């Protein structure tokens, strides 16, 4: 297993390099001028100097290698420095990936935005899992009952209705008509006492519910299918024949075995959630990573977009790896070597 993990980790490096190259090429091929949004009164030679200062004068391969160096060597060194509090080497002259839009290091922007995204996305995924598992278990156990029929329909709806519609619908109902929940996420809110805690809960409620419903719809289908696969197995009959109570059969024997594939689906879904959060953050005006990406795209801030897109790619590769490794650890029938 360790062998396999190491092999996969080593294989992830060329994959990520290729992805970073693709992202770099796409952004570089684009007929796009970063000085395009500057005032028209700036003369052409000044414009050329600005482009030079942004590092665009270098040939393609040098810029790519420089970006790699900044992302893979300089930024991790900075983070380590930050953790240990002691300078490593020549930290002041170390080049960082700098946003063209705000002139500050991209990583600082990301660190600023990360907590909001993690709160909304993480909580929604957790809520989604908590809703999906019981629904999946019950609809599989009572297959074709009214609960199963309704559950199937609701999950089909949750899966089909896009989050940007459910989000707007919730805003129309709960913010516009009923006035119960705020439609804008306030990042400056600090939780100090009970009333501010309730305010935090209220502003989290809608974005979390929108994403949670979407996740729960997919997960509950997987959970149901996985439970159904196991319910007809011989070991379930054996457990019943031994005289175990139905509760033990279901929750100990069947559930634990059914969770194995579901856990991998959960792991595989994490990066997708970050992608889905781009839309949800836009609807509820959460200033998280997704909104940062949209802002960067709108302002043609190439270093920022490059870095963020690449971070999304890292998340996908990393969670694919985790899913495979966890599956191998949980299911003794799976042997990779």
């Amino acid at each position, binding site marked *: 297993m360790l062998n396999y993990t190491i092999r996969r980790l080593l294989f992830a490096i060329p*994959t990520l390099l*290729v*992805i970073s190259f*693709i*992202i770099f090429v*796409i*952004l570089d091929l*684009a*007929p*796009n001028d970063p000085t395009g949004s500057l005032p028209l009164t700036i003369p052409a030679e000044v414009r050329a100097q600005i482009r030079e200062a942004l590092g665009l004068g270098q040939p393609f391969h040098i810029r790519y290698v420089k970006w790699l160096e900044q992302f893979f060597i300089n930024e991790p060194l900075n983070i380590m420095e930050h953790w240990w509090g002691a300078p490593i080497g020549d930290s002041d002259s170390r080049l960082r990936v700098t946003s063209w839009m705000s002139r500050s290091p991209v990583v600082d922007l990301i660190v600023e935005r990360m907590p909001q995204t993690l709160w909304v996305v993480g909580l929604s995924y957790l809520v989604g899992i908590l809703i999906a598992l019981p629904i999946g278990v019950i609809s599989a156990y009572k297959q074709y009952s009214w609960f199963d029929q309704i559950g199937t*329909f609701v999950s*089909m*709806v949750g*899966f*089909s*209705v*896009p989050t*940007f*519609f459910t989000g*707007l*619908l919730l*805003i*129309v109902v709960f913010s*516009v008509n009923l006035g119960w929940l705020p439609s804008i996420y306030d990042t400056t809110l600090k939780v100090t006492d009970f009333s501010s805690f309730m305010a935090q809960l209220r502003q989290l409620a809608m974005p979390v519910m929108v994403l949670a419903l979407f996740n729960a719809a997919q997960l509950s289908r997987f959970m149901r299918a996985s439970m159904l696969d196991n319910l007809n197995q011989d070991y379930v009959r054996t457990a019943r024949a031994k005289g175990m109570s139905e509760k033990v059969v279901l929750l100990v024997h069947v559930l634990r075995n059914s969770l194995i594939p579901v856990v991998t689906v959960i792991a595989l879904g994490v*990066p997708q959630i970050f*992608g*889905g959060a*781009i*839309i949800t953050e*836009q*609807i509820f005006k959460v200033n998280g990573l997704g909104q940062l*990406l*949209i802002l960067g*795209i*709108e302002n*043609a801030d190439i270093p920022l*977009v490059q870095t*963020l*897109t690449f971070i*999304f*790619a890292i*998340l*996908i*590769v990393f969670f*694919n790896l985790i899913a495979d490794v966890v599956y191998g650890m949980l299911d003794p029938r799976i042997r990779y070597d």
Partner: protein
Amino acid sequence: MTDTNMNIVSEPLHEHRSLWGDVWRQFRTHKGAVVGVAVFTFIVLVVVLGPFIHTIDPTFLDIRNKNLAPTLAHPMGTDNLGRDMLAQVMAGGQVSMLVGVTAMLLSLVLGAFIGVIAGYFKILDGVLMRLTDLFLALPILPLLLVIIMLFRDSLRSVFGPETGIFILIVFVIGITSWMQTARIVRGEVLALKEQEFIIAARSIGTRRHRIISRHILPNVLSPILVSATLGIANAIITESALSFLGLGFPSDFPTWGRLLFDGKDFMQLTPARVIWPGLAISLTVLSVNYIGDGLRDALDPRIRGR
């Protein structure tokens, strides 16, 4: 003489059952799928034929009648520039559906091609599957946004504002959604390749492209059909999401996602502007998903036998 002959022929001794007849029979037992077909047909009919009945031009500005609630002349009300919402929803539906179908076809052709090639030719299998894995590891939505943002203007100047963005969106959606189809088709082809009838075909000297087109492709048709339906749903959602983020079609060229995007700022005033396009997207995707569900059951011989 002829008449009596005809009568004899038209009275079969036993009911003739074709494969597609069986599929259709099984499909009809799936209630959700039948309702899905009905709803989808209804939406397509409204979107295609509706503009001939409700003849208001979707881009006609009638500034005196702005932000109207639903009336007889404007069944879905009007927007902040007095454009008729029903006409816009129908016009938007045409674009959204066209994008969905075209992008699905592109991704299907690409996916089936790569899947068949990877499954049939062992030398190419490794390379093509690594390519598929690579595409699966790409962050699709951010990348789509970036590509559209960066290439939109140059394509617009070449093909005109509408055609340019249409080509771009169809192309990027198609090229980033073929991976699942390719994987499924490859798996099927791998299993099929070892079966006796393929070996028999090869032993009588059938050429490779004939084997693929006559024997392999018809047998992988069912997974391709299922991914086709799901592909339409996926493409419609992706296009709406892009338009919703303001990076899809221009606002004078409505699609459902674009209408939602434009309507969301007027939610308090005219909530209908959000609800109708959103409902149209949701119902279309829901019905297509149900059709896909029913098709999967109907095309699966293990389920159909029962």
